[in-house]
């Protein structure tokens, strides 16, 4: 979906079952090191001298892919106030690896006047299709900066 035909992100348009993506990225040493520094992570796994033999991405380095999935499909927002998150890890993301991520809006509901949505997303190695990670975010939708 191009920027021009994206739909407005609002409660009426955020519906269960909407498929988002795919989006693609390459895991770079630059991002791994920047993310590790920013989060105070000094685990050697995240360095070029990784004891695993290959430089590994910190576990949530690609968490924000949910926002890329949303902004590829919707305009006017890229999420909201983060309420919950969950991850299942199947294999580490490695420097140099090309990763594909697909997502789906799995649930929407209203609680205490706020509009919530849950977005599940899954990342796989582009070449082997190996499953790397499943994630889900629950957020309160913000439209024009206000909770819906």
């Amino acid at each position, binding site marked *: 979906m191009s920027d021009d035909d994206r739909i407005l992100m609002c409660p009426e348009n955020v519906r269960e079952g909407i498929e988002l993506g795919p989006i693609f990225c390459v895991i770079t040493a630059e991002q791994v090191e920047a*993310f590790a520094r920013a989060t105070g992570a000094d685990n050697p796994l995240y360095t070029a001298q990784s004891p695993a033999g290959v430089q590994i991405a910190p576990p949530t380095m690609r*968490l924000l892919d949910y926002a890329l999935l949303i902004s590829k499909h919707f305009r006017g927002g890229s999420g909201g106030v983060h309420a919950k998150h969950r991850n299942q890890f199947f294999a580490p993301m490695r420097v140099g690896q090309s990763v594909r991520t697909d997502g789906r809006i799995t649930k929407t509901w209203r609680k205490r006047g706020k509009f919530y949505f849950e977005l599940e997303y899954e990342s796989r190695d582009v070449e082997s299709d190996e499953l790397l990670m499943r994630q889900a975010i629950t957020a309160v939708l913000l439209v024009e900066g206000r909770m819906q």
Partner: protein
Amino acid sequence: MSVATFESGREFESRSYLLDAAAAHAYGAAVEHPARRTVQPNIHDDNAAAKRAGFPAPIAAGEHTYALAANFMVNLFGIDFLRGGSLEASMIKPVFFGDRLVVHARVTDSDSSGVAMEMWVENDRHVRVLVGSARLARNPR
């Protein structure tokens, strides 16, 4: 993974992490690397946006705090956590810039199938800002 080191009831605590504006900026730059979106003024960097959303001041991104918890699990379990671990958490209180955060974990179950933990993140006022759980199967891939 050595399950024997994770007997039920054992507690762990991370080092303190200062989540100030500089840390938030560094985090934002790292997750948007390379930049692929046009990010508008938002609750994480703009006073007016924060107030519109009902917060007295900009708040740290919930995923920034969650990242500290996830990193801590890798420190505890090693790379195995990325081959069979799971983590889930609720962000229950806002984190304001200048808060010092510590991740806590307590083993709730440890047996032949794996290790389960409750975990939480506290600020320097001993308020829990994130609560959740983590699990690692005994024989990850």
